[in-house]
């Protein structure tokens, strides 16, 4: 059976042309970032309404089944209790910093501006980025039309989740701190020693982050709270990141490092808060 090709372009040539086109796109997007963000914005403004729609449909189904099982009442009570716990944890964070070396902390971060007094905006998580098995960034359903801007911090319940990397008019992309390789500058609540908190994919599955660069003569121990520090140029100070779960001295004898259990459960993120205050540097 003879098959004549009804196409003008040979298949092999097509592959080569398209591959070349893709390479050009790769180079173009590495060199000119506005090109990439322009395309992204266009595609996302088309996709996110659908994602929001799916999210609300999905939420509708889930709600129905819960109602049938009569768990709603129990869950409401749970939420109230959880809010109370969050408020108490917030207070606890404040009290812990007060307890240890009060004057140094006052000088350091001006206690009037704890994160509970930062203005927040609630948002829903509507999609995870496609390579969701590898990275940890997601989309929320509020954007620049709601006052969200890039570099605003994102928190959930009582802990730091990440930072806004990109906004469209009705969506925003958030990169979370457990993202592999992503760094946040942190400090101990107790001693105000500085450290670096780093996301790592291997640890994220256990709910942990890597913490390093702690000076060896600091008295950090397991269970200590770590918060964002003043010296970060994107993160507002005083937000809880997590609790130290393991610490040991490095081989060089000068610094300590270890693991941090994040305060937020990244596997079950539904609602987050975006702090609408931006850190002013320079």
């Amino acid at each position, binding site marked *: 059976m003879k098959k004549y090709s009804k*196409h003008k372009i040979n*298949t092999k040539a*097509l*592959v080569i042309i*398209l*591959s070349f*086109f*893709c*390479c*050009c*796109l*790769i180079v*173009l*997007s*590495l060199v000119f970032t506005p*090109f*990439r963000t322009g*395309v*992204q914005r*266009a*595609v*996302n403004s088309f*996709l996110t309404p*659908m*994602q929001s729609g*799916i*999210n609300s449909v*999905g*939420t509708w189904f*889930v709600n129905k089944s819960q109602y049938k099982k009569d768990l709603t009442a129990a869950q409401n009570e749970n939420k109230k209790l959880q809010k109370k716990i969050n408020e108490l944890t917030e207070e606890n964070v404040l009290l812990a910093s007060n307890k240890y070396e009060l004057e140094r902390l006052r000088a350091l971060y001006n206690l009037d501006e704890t994160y509970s007094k930062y203005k927040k905006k609630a948002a829903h998580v*509507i*999609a*995870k*980025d*496609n*390579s*969701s*098995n*590898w990275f940890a*960034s997601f*989309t929320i359903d509020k954007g620049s039309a709601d006052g969200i801007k890039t570099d605003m911090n994102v928190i959930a319940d009582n802990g730091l989740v990440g930072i806004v*990397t*990109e906004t469209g008019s009705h969506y925003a*992309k958030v990169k979370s701190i457990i993202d*592999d*390789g992503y760094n946040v500058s942190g400090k101990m609540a107790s001693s105000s020693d500085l450290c670096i908190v780093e996301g790592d*994919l*291997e640890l994220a*599955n256990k709910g942990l982050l890597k913490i390093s660069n702690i000076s060896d003569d600091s008295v950090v121990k397991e269970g200590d709270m770590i918060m964002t520090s003043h010296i970060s140029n994107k993160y507002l100070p005083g937000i809880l990141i997590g609790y130290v779960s393991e610490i040991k001295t490095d081989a060089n004898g000068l610094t300590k490092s270890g693991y941090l259990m994040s305060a937020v459960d990244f*596997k079950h993120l539904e609602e987050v808060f975006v702090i609408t205050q931006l850190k002013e540097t320079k």
Partner: protein
Amino acid sequence: MFKQKILRKFIMFFTIIISFLIETSFTKIFSLTAFCPNLLIMLTVFMGFIRGRRAGIYTGFFSGLLIDAASGNVLGFQALIFLLIGYFCGIFRRVYYDEDIRLPLILVVSADFIYNFIYYIFFFFVRNRMHFGYYFINNILPEMIFTCIIALLTYRLVQKIDKKLDVIEKGSESVLD
């Protein structure tokens, strides 16, 4: 004739978008763990295998482009990988038998593995994260298994739809060979 060609392209376009949306909202819809099947790879492999190299290339290119455009990585990278996968699956069309389901499944699983492996190389290996074994067991393998199961369930459906489109396009004689 012209209308039917457009119909097929429209259905393909629609399916790609739906698959992408399902993938990103998967955890919301099904409340499962963090893993979701890689529907777009599966679609690319199916199209390449059932319909040949050209279909595989186009499906792969547009799927990859969609992922790139939406997720903020380097634009064009995933498009390239997907289109090559579609092309290679198209080469396997010579051994396409109607009732056979093992070969397409093997193709889907290998394509998923290769895609994830390349992703690992370019985004993790170059940053000195060497524990491939860990990533494999915890991230790649569950996705491969999940994708395989979904492929098993949907392959017949895809075949049926393809045959139906063939009938619409060329008349019923084309199905008789």
